[in-house]
């Protein structure tokens, strides 16, 4: 099996599973607790049907939309995900280059393995930076200022990760960064010599954005979980978010909003967007899926800020349904990470190409010329 055999989520996932050591694969693939929310995120789309209009003389549909003040060529972009050089040595650089090629946005995690400046240098794609509020405020300030200097287009503050989720697969596989080698995981690494070779021969693993500010997550075998629990401020509140907005003074989203009430409050403090997200089912298990919640939020605030649906997206039709329910765009994490693990930059290019083609084909089948035509009338909920 190789990249050419990958047509959908499951194919990319399968190939990534072959190539990545088990602890790393399961770090991407796993959710919290019983993974109920993880599964629901995608299944929710199946409780809703698309209703096409025929004979609409569609021609070539326009798939572009605008988010964070930037026009992107398709309504789907890359979610911010930590430590991408675990999957391929080029990590975030590979993702950003692929995003540029397809005219969409790349997002950088606070815990990225390349720095803000390094990625800005190699790619002109629209760029979103994902922020965590650290207990040490100078870390937060420094990140915001550097994003401005590096011409990032938008900032999103993740608000669903005050404490690390209970990812039991990580407990079992002993996932830490850098990977802790237990007897069991050793076997899994030994069976993937190519990964190990690349990992050892490329630049030293580090959390590039924060390496000067903390020794956590770099030299010592620190699990992500410990990092989150030690460094992020669980006392974070609306004032802190407002502070970040002021300091940034540009397009700004809260990532992880789920309630209508919070969506309204996001407007009040000056957000231009929200990302409806449960962190891909990695945090609060049993929490509502973005697609189940998007319509209620869009009905309440859809005209006042950009709504991005984040989580569970695996198909072009999922994107169409999300847009019809009121989202402006979608973002996805696991699917592109698997493609990154499966084939580096080429993998991400392929996944974006596939999704682009699916969205385009389905727009034509729906009889829609532009994304604006996707509204509530194009979907019916089964229950």
């Amino acid at each position: 099996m190789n990249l050419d055999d990958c047509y959908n989520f499951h194919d990319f996932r399968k190939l990534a599973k072959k190539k990545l050591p088990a602890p790393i694969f399961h770090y991407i693939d796993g959710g919290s607790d019983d993974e109920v929310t993880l599964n629901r995120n995608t299944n929710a789309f199946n409780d809703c049907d698309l209703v096409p209009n025929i004979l609409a003389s569609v021609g070539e549909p326009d798939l572009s939309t605008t988010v964070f003040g930037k026009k992107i060529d398709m309504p789907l972009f890359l979610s911010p995900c930590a430590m991408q050089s675990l999957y391929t040595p080029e990590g975030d650089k590979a993702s950003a280059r692929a995003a540029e090629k397809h005219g969409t946005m790349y997002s950088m995690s606070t815990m990225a393995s390349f720095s803000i400046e390094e990625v800005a240098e190699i790619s002109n794609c629209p760029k979103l930076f994902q922020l965590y509020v650290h207990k040490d405020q100078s870390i937060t300030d420094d990140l915001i200022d550097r994003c401005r200097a590096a011409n990032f287009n938008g900032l999103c503050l993740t608000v669903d990760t005050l404490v690390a989720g209970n990812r039991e697969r990580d407990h079992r596989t002993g996932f830490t960064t850098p990977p802790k080698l237990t007897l069991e995981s050793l076997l899994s690494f030994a069976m993937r010599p190519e990964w190990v070779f690349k990992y050892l021969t490329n630049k030293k693993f580090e959390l590039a954005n924060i390496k000067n500010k903390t020794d956590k997550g770099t030299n010592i075998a620190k699990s992500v979980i410990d990092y989150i629990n030690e460094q992020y401020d669980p006392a974070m509140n609306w004032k802190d978010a407002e502070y970040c907005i002021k300091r940034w003074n540009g397009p700004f989203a809260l990532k992880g909003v789920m309630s209508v009430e919070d969506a309204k409050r996001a407007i009040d403090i000056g957000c231009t967007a929200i990302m409806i997200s449960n962190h891909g089912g990695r945090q609060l298990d049993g929490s509502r899926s973005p697609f189940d919640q998007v319509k209620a939020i869009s009905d309440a605030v859809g005209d006042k800020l950009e709504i991005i649906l984040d989580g569970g997206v695996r198909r072009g039709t999922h994107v169409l349904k999300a847009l019809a329910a009121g989202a402006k765009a979608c973002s996805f994490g696991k699917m592109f990470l698997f493609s990154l693990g499966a084939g580096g930059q080429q993998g991400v290019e392929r996944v974006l190409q596939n999704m682009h083609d699916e969205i385009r084909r389905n727009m034509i089948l729906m009889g829609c010329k532009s994304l604006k035509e996707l509204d509530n009338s194009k979907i019916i909920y089964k229950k």
Partner: protein
Amino acid sequence: MNLNDCHNFGDFRKLAKKKLPSPIFHYIDGAADDEITYARNTSAFDDVDLVPNVLRGVENVDLSTTIFGKKLDLPFYLAPTALQRLFHYDGERAVGKAAKKYNTMFGVSALATVSVEEISSMIDTPKMFQFYFHKDRGLNDACLERAKAAKFDVMALTVDTITGGNRERDLRTGFTSPPKLTLSSLFSFATKPMWGINYLTKGKFELPHLQDHVKEGTDTNTSIGNYFSTMLDQSMNWKDAEKLCSQWGGHFALKGIMSVDDAKRAVDIGCTGIMVSNHGGRQLDGSRAPFDQLAEIVDAVGDKLDVICEGGIHRGTHMLKALSLGAKACSGGRLYLYALAAGGQAGVERAIEKYKTELIRDMKLMGCTKISDLNRNNLRFR
């Protein structure tokens, strides 16, 4: 696999299965008929989603809750279950000490294998005595008086075991107490020698609350189903419950209420709490899951007595959902029984610790700092 590998309900269950002779494991693990209600008790929680609120400043979380006039440090407690020394030789001693350590309520079954007197001399934290209504009124009075003298805080009358449930796994494995050795169960006991050695050497197995009155459960091989069917009084009615309630003279609950009508009547006869419960799916199969029925009951009587959601709970988030709907607290049996079998007191403590850690984490992710922050706005039904 050992206790350190146990991260959740399923892990404890797996380890318990390794350690227990199969008739005993299946006595805990099984339920009535086709076990439909048993499965629904847990899956009911998946039909509702939590909707968190963000940016609330949630550094410190207070999990304490007050039921039956007692403040517990946790919003859940350990439901009364029978025969604990079959599961681990320390039985109720282990469970009681773990409950004490976390300051939550310990439910002691009428069919406990350690006496109420010993338990109350061992732990000073909140205790509930679970009462079965026997035909033998002398036995009933004796149980009640002993629990009262031992300063138990709550009496819970179980009302859903008027006859034994059809637990087919027990029929197949030949579960009785003390265990009946059939050829196939013999094999299972023989392959778990540690259990057998402990059972035979760590003190005689007995049912201290019954033994002065009957020979069932002590010398002879009697099954639990038999006990229910022959010793309990099937004519028990509301008058009997009311009489017991006043005879007890303290906090009194009915355990196994499922209908709104009955919940209202419980208020009328002076109950201060009810357990919405179907006995962990072990009695009437096809009966409604506690979580499915909770909202109706809370709406009807939630302001008049403490409503407890009992059964099917495997996760902190399950508890958050029940509490959001209006339950005052949650309780469960298997949520600590497998852990008891897996590792005695240390096992139960590990299980409670896991739930506590989950609850704190989940409360933070929900944007809540105290139990009373949870309400129905946090929930959306699918």
